[in-house]
Structure formats: structure tokens, C-alpha cells
């Protein structure tokens, strides 16, 4: 199914904010098996100069998943979510996320194209504090695999 090209350039404004909690950071770090003390021990994080626990580098995906859910599930866009796989992901950091941050995400559709029957959509998420301090920019390519991929 071809995607609606009119969506290129469309920006989805920040929705409700995300308050980063210590236990969520610990839970996420444990789920990726990362025992770096700055993800678990407040004193270790403070010893490195951080205000509180540091979030692992891929933690922002929690925020961008929520922010992009409305985008990829938008029926007018025409993406078949059950066939979606992740093609590329990147993060450009101004600083690490730390516990206590209250963050908002603004998502923009940067590109839409179809290659070999697969729909591909590139999005950018700007993650900032409520006061407008930039923390991290996320970039994602998601692919909706065409039905012909099912052929052996």
C-alpha cells in the first residue's frame, strides 16, 4: 500500500510531557543487562557530575515510541503497522537524559518513499525539557514490508 506523500514535512506537536523516573531508568538498564553504576546508583551518577541517575543512551526510544505511535497509526498515512520493522535508528545527544527530567517530543515526518514494494518513512524527534533545553534528537526509519516479502 502506498503511503500518502502529503505527510512529508508534517510535524506532530509535543503531547503530554514524560517525567523520567529513577525506577524506570533502573528497569530499562536491567532489561538491557547494563550494570554501569551511573544507571543504578545515584551517588555514582553524582560523582560524575550528574544531578541524578543517568538514562542509558537508547532510553529515548521510550519517548519516541509513544510520540510516533500516533504518526505510524494515523489511518490517513496508510501504514500497515502489523508489517512494520525498524530500519534505522540514530540519536544525537546534547546531554544524557537524567532522572527528574520532564521531557516533550516534537515529531516530524522527514521522508516517505517506496522501494521494492516496501513503504519507508523517516521521522525525526526533538526531545526537549519543558523549559526548551534540547536534550536529544532521534532519527528513525521504519519499514512496512510489502506482501511479496512473504514469498520464499
Amino acid at each position, binding site marked *: 500500500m502506498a503511503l500518502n506523500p502529503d505527510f512529508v514535512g508534517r510535524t506532530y506537536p509535543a503531547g503530554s510531557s514524560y517525567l523520567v523516573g529513577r525506577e524506570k531508568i533502573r*528497569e*530499562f538498564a*536491567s*532489561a*538491557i*543487562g*547494563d550494570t*554501569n*553504576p*551511573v*544507571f543504578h546508583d545515584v551517588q*555514582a551518577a553524582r*560523582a*560524575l557530575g*550528574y544531578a541524578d541517575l*543517568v538514562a*542509558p*543512551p*537508547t532510553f529515548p*526510544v*521510550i519517548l519516541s*515510541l*509513544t510520540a510516533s505511535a500516533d504518526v505510524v497509526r494515523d489511518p490517513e498515512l496508510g501504514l500497515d503497522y*502489523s*508489517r*512494520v*520493522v*525498524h*530500519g*534505522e*535508528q*540514530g*540519536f*544525537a*545527544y546534547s*546531554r*544524557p537524559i537524567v532522572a527528574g527530567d520532564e521531557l516533550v517530543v516534537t515529531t516530524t515526518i522527514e521522508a516517505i518513499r517506496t522501494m521494492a514494494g516496501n513503504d519507508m518513512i523517516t521521522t525525526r524527534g526533538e526531545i526537549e525539557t519543558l523549559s526548551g533545553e534540547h536534550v536529544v534528537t532521534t*532519527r528513525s*526509519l521504519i519499514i512496512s*514490508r510489502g506482501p511479496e*516479502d*512473504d514469498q520464499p
Partner: protein
Amino acid sequence: MTASVSWRDVEVGTELPAQTFTLDRSALVRYAGASGDFNVIHWNERIATAVGLPNVIAHGMLTMALAGRVVTDWVGDPGALVDYGVRFTRPVVVPDDEAGATIEVTGTVSRKDEDGIVQVTLTARCDAVTVLGRAQALVRLP
């Protein structure tokens, strides 16, 4: 804990300590809960195979997180990371058995800039097949 490497001690070609990670189905369920990514292809074999995958596959973001540990364990302070990006070139298939999937990650310094930034290029292999492409991190070293 401070960064364990300094910019002047690093050269293009410097190898980071390699790491091997094992993923079983419970790791995928745990990551789904922690990340909020409940896409069924990461835990439901019936649907994964119905959409043309060989079996349940790991979240790409989980593989990216594991590969990134080779960089952050090397520098110590994860705040040294300036940029980190990957392409998910092949799925990490996680069978429903005791062994699960094994991912081997290596990293090599591929560029050294005068401003204290170095680029690390990562490789991630599962069953001798490359699962990440263009996997690169920029880190600022003291």
C-alpha cells in the same frame, strides 16, 4: 568513575574490548515491558511466522542497546556519547530454547578528530551474520 580512556591514547584502529551477549525469549519479554515496544513479532511465534519472519525476532533497539555497551563500557561515562546510529540489516532470530541467540559485538576507532571526538565503528554478528550496518558512535574523550 571517570572515563577510562583519553583522547591522546587513542588512534585510528584502536580496538575496543569485544563483548558477547545472549538473548533468550525472557529477555525479549523483559525488554518489551521496559521499553513499551509490545510489537507481537518480538514474542508471538505464530504471528511472526505469519508475516514472513523465520521466528520471533529481537527488538532492533535491544540489539542497538547491547552494541552500544561496547562503547559506554569503554569510556565509562555514557555522557561522553555525542551521536549513536545503526541500521538494522538482518533480524536477530531468537528460538524458543535454552540457548537463545548470541550476539558478538566488536568496536574499532575509525576516525580521530582534533576536537576530542573519536568515531567508533561497531560490528554485531549473530550466527556469523552481520545484523547491524553503519553502526557508528561519536564519543568525546577527555
